[in-house]
């Protein structure tokens, strides 16, 4: 007897997997192809691993610098957004101050606004302020989107931690900063991990400002570089594919190592 339900679900899942994984497979396969294999018809498995596609753009061209810039930018974002984000989230969650809700909403709208709307003003502003084509210029502009995200996510987590626990620590003899270090941060660890991951991914993937506010290998991240690759006279698909694989790897690796925390964070509320 055929179990239709099971068969149907296998087919459905199979189709979905093909839909999501095939492009990735095609990207990886293409990254190892020779030029001839790319333009000479459909080749599913290249006859040899052509590592030059990786080597040349990264080590003989400027893409190594772009990759470095992407790392600097993403890690700087985490380092820059999380400490103030934690404190701000704490303030929004626990303290009462004038117009606190308005501030929170204002922070959020920074995140909601379409970035393209600010592109021209930023372009002009950055030119005046000598921030054009600098990594710290990009760091600043990314923070405007990332900080609200961090605050919003962490506020939810801090809301879920009973205030009694903090007060118990004060009574047990701890100051605010000691309490933060010994109680709040350990309890927020999954949340901080998840926030860092998302900030990393957001920054790593950001393309609009990266491609338009930077021009030189001194500042441009990989996303901007990839875009510029297209504008050259001829398109080396294998090298683009190789660079795309390189661009994807850190995100996949980070997610792999943080997946335990992501699960914890998504099933939050189990703090008690």
């Amino acid at each position, binding site marked *: 007897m055929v179990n239709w339900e099971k068969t149907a679900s296998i087919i459905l899942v199979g189709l979905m997997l093909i839909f999501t994984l095939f492009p990735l497979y095609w990207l990886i396969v293409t990254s190892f192809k020779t030029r001839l294999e790319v333009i000479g018809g459909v080749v599913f498995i290249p006859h040899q691993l052509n590592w030059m596609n990786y080597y040349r753009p990264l080590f003989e061209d400027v893409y190594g610098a772009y990759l470095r810039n992407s790392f600097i930018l993403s890690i700087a974002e985490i380092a820059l957004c999380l400490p103030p984000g934690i404190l701000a989230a704490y303030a929004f969650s626990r303290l009462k101050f004038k117009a606190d809700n308005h501030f929170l909403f204002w922070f959020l709208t920074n995140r909601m606004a379409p970035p393209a709307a600010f592109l021209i003003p930023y372009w002009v502003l950055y030119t005046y302020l000598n921030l054009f084509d600098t990594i710290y210029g990009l760091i600043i502009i990314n923070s405007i989107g990332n900080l609200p995200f961090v605050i919003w996510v962490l506020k939810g987590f801090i809301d879920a931690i*009973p205030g*009694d*626990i903090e*007060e118990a620590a004060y*009574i*047990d003899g701890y100051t605010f900063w*000691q309490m933060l270090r010994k109680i709040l941060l350990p309890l927020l660890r999954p949340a901080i991990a998840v926030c860092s991951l998302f900030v990393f991914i957001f920054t790593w993937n950001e393309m609009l400002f990266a491609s338009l506010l930077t021009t030189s290998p001194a500042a441009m991240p990989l996303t901007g570089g990839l875009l510029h690759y297209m504008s050259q006279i001829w398109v080396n698909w294998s090298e683009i594919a190789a660079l795309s694989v390189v661009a994807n790897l850190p995100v996949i690796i980070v997610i792999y190592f943080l997946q335990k925390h992501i699960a914890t964070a998504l099933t939050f509320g189990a703090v*008690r």
Partner: protein
Amino acid sequence: MADFSEESFFKKLLSYPLEMSKVKVVNLVKKFDKTVAVNGISFNVKDGEFIVLLGPSGCGKTTTLRCIAGLETPDEGEIYIDDRMVNDLPPKDRDIAMVFQSYALYPHMTVYGNLAFPLKMRKYPKQEIDKRVREVAKLLRIEELLDRKPRQLSGGQQQRVALGRALVRNPRVWLMDEPLSNLDAKLRVYMRAELKKLQKDLKITTIYVTHDQAEAMAMADRVAVMNKGKILQYDEPRHVYERPANLFVAGFIGSPPMNFIKASIIEKDSRIILDAGFFQYELEKDLGEVVKKGASGSEVIIGFRPEHIALSKEKDANSVFQADVYVIEPMGSRIVVDLKAGEYLLKAVTPPTVEIPPSGQKVWVGFPVEQLHVFDAKTEKALI
């Protein structure tokens, strides 16, 4: 199971001395925006005394406790611990310990970590920390739980850990915010006795907040009955029960609560009579004088407790008025009888040996004059 028979059993388990302290609260006022949570209360707690702040939710009892703990800043008034004003001291410098309603255990630490936490802050040597944690764990019988996380514990066990954390560093004052209210009824009654024994044995000055009058009566040396941010009476439980200072205290203490009937004072041939409409009650001369002198007008409220009512089929010397039996609630050890008299539904509690006529039938209601309470209808103060 520990042997509790010896007087200072608990104390022998601890190698360190426990301190006692006096607490004095003077004219404490605390407002939140425009609501006044605590409205000028004063009280003192003696060395080693167990006092209970009792009242309905929103009466300001928890706010008072939090002010003493330093978790809230008073708007007015002073708080003294051992004659030292602590208004401006942060909680960590007040040398107090607090047990929260939610226990507030640190979820990411083991029981051992939770117990050691207050000591680590005070930079005790590792050995001393270990010794104390184990002593307290032994005292509270949670030794085998030291390696567990709070979420792996039952409510009663979490409660013990919270008590242990409050005990381990030998605080001057114990503050407890409804520590038993999250336990099931059976465990609550059990822990009630245990907590009292512990406090009496260790002689730690304790301020305990609850809305449960039975808990207050059972545990306290003195009870402060609070309502609407004020202390209405501060006295031993026995006195609060026997001689409530006003209508609120009378209604709040005792279960089922005291019966109240409106009446007016009538003077007839120099006799003083309380007229409730469906019955009249003549007061003895001196009592009548007291009532008449104290009353702000002629309207009063008569109060008598359900457990002081005597029911009888036939009229006897104590009988005051006749009522209809409305509902009979047998409780096993006692019977609660709901009575209908005039416009009132009254409650009476009798031993199960007393024969009660079935519902709908008439019964005589009586109460001894010593158990009669009379309150001024306007000021709600007790007249006798």
